[in-house]
């Protein structure tokens, strides 16, 4: 049917993807420009910004930190969120609406607001507990788990709603106790939802800037924060080179993920 679609449809699809991908493509292009202050057309092409990006250790370190934080936050947040979504969908909870609003809350609060509030809260907690929280990995991970909860609850709930419950009933009928039913039947059936939740949780954590801004510490800066810090002081194409490498790595990661779990069937 696609061939019979009208001009508006086609141009909207093209415009939509152009809008999403244009800045990404642009970043890749300018990473090769020779001049320090970006202007078109380029005065020449060079790889020097890649060298520079490599020498600035904060980017490589930031990438590793971001990966680490995103992986741990996803590993903690997705099980918590999945459990909560399951309880919300199946248990008879008093105040279900309120709890589900609470769990979606981190999505509604602006990142800079939540980040500032959390930073001040952490500082108070440090005094009470006499323990470092800001600028520690645990403090950062905890904040990022917060980011993963609403996405997980959202996506797993959608998955639960679309699920045929007869398989669960069959398992119970065959003698499985509720936890077994959950682990052996429900969870595997929810897999697309859970994988989608993990993917989005990872994305939310990996690219987060606002919530992270005040919670990072020296030697433990995430990649987006390292990039903003760099951009604040320099506009040369080093940032573009870092981003290009990041785009390549991320694309490779997604292609690998896609081999195991078809992304098109998950999202």
């Amino acid at each position, binding site marked *: 049917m696609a061939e019979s679609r009208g001009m508006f449809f086609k141009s909207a699809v093209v415009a939509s993807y152009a809008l999403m991908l244009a800045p990404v493509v642009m970043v890749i292009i300018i990473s090769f420009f020779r001049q*320090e*202050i*970006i*202007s078109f057309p380029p005065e020449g092409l060079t790889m020097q910004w890649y060298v520079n990006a490599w020498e600035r250790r*904060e980017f490589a370190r930031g990438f590793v930190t971001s990966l*680490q934080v995103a*992986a*741990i936050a*996803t*590993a*903690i947040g997705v099980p918590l969120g999945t459990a909560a979504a399951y309880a919300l969908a199946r248990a008879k909870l008093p105040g279900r609406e309120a709890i589900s609003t609470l769990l979606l809350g981190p999505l509604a609060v602006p990142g800079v607001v939540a980040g500032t509030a959390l*930073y*001040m809260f952490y*500082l108070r907690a*440090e*005094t009470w507990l*006499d323990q*470092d929280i*800001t*600028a*520690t*990995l*645990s403090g950062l*991970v905890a904040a990022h788990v917060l980011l993963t909860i609403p996405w997980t609850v959202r996506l797993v709930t959608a998955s639960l709603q679309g699920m045929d419950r007869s398989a669960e009933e069959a398992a119970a009928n065959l003698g499985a106790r509720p936890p077994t039913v959950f682990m052996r039947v429900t969870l595997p059936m929810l897999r697309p939802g859970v994988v989608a939740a993990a993917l989005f949780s990872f994305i939310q954590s990996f690219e987060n800037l606002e919530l992270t*801004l*005040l919670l990072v*510490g*020296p*030697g*433990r*800066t995430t990649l987006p924060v*390292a990039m903003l*810090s*760099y951009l*604040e*002081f*320099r*506009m040369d194409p080093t940032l573009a080179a870092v981003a290009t490498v990041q785009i390549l790595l991320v694309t490779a990661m997604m292609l690998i993920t896609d081999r*195991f*779990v078809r992304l098109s069937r998950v999202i």
Partner: protein
Amino acid sequence: MTISRRTLLSGSAALLTAAATGAPKNAVAQAGGQVVIGTWGGDYGELLRQLIDQQFTAQSKIEVLQDIGNNSPRKSKLLAERQNRRGSMDVSCLSDSDTYQMMQQNVLDKLATDRIPRLGTVIEALRKDYAVPHIYSAMVILYNPSKVTTPPTSYADLWDAKWRGRVGLSDILYNYNTAVAALAGGGSMSDFGPANKRLMDWRSLDVKIYPSNEALATGLKSEEVWLAPMWLARGYMWKKAGIPLNHVVPKEGAVPVVYEAAVPRNARNKDNAWRYLNAMLEPQAQIGFAERMGYVPTVRDAQLPAELAREISLTEAQQATLKTPDHAYLLQHTASILDFWNKDFKG
């Protein structure tokens, strides 16, 4: 699928263990401990690293960690953390007005003069008991010589109608731009009264505001604007980067800026911090900053090559007319200055 899931799980388990066992707060630990420097990124941070940190670590075995950010968030962090027993920075690099404000807020420790032997070489006028002056420069007028044939001589010349739409300002320097307006309007560093009218005049002359110094550089490069009040040091850097620029020191007297370093009261590694401040005053490091960034040394024994000195320093006469900010006045009015800048001037 099973395999991949298992690998995924074991991978995340490993990460979790790493998190639980609590890797030390900073990855690498040196024998002499560490020192955390709250600093700007970009060239400044890079030069700190090249000119000070490397040698410092080699000599003292103290690891230097940079906490990079702009001065505003750094100030906010210092203020937010001041009630805490342990802060996140050992040394905080800030401009002179910022350190004054932090001192007023009781954030900074008094300098341990005995631990910073090189304090004795600091230019008298720049000495303070709560911060070490690291580098300084002054706000001059940069102009594009191919477009501006009769250069301005004073800040007030920036209001000449023939430069309509050709004057550029950096948004982050709002308080200095306001000071320029005050001086041009006949005010002083302790009286910004005339500034507001001048700012509104500027606005009607289509002055261009750029979000950062770097964005202003782009505007100068593309010849979108021809004139800008800016640090002489920046002008020097930009000239080196190929932007056609000359500078004049205004008749009213240039507003100087001193970039300083101070130690918060709740710094974790104070001993290391004092040593670091001392290292910042070493002549070689000072000359390095001058050569690479165009800032003038703050110590008497750092001899610049004559050519460089001509480009970045002020003459004795010019130095005599410097309009040093009245920090107390600024602090009292900073909120209203920002408000006027945001709402009336820009809005």
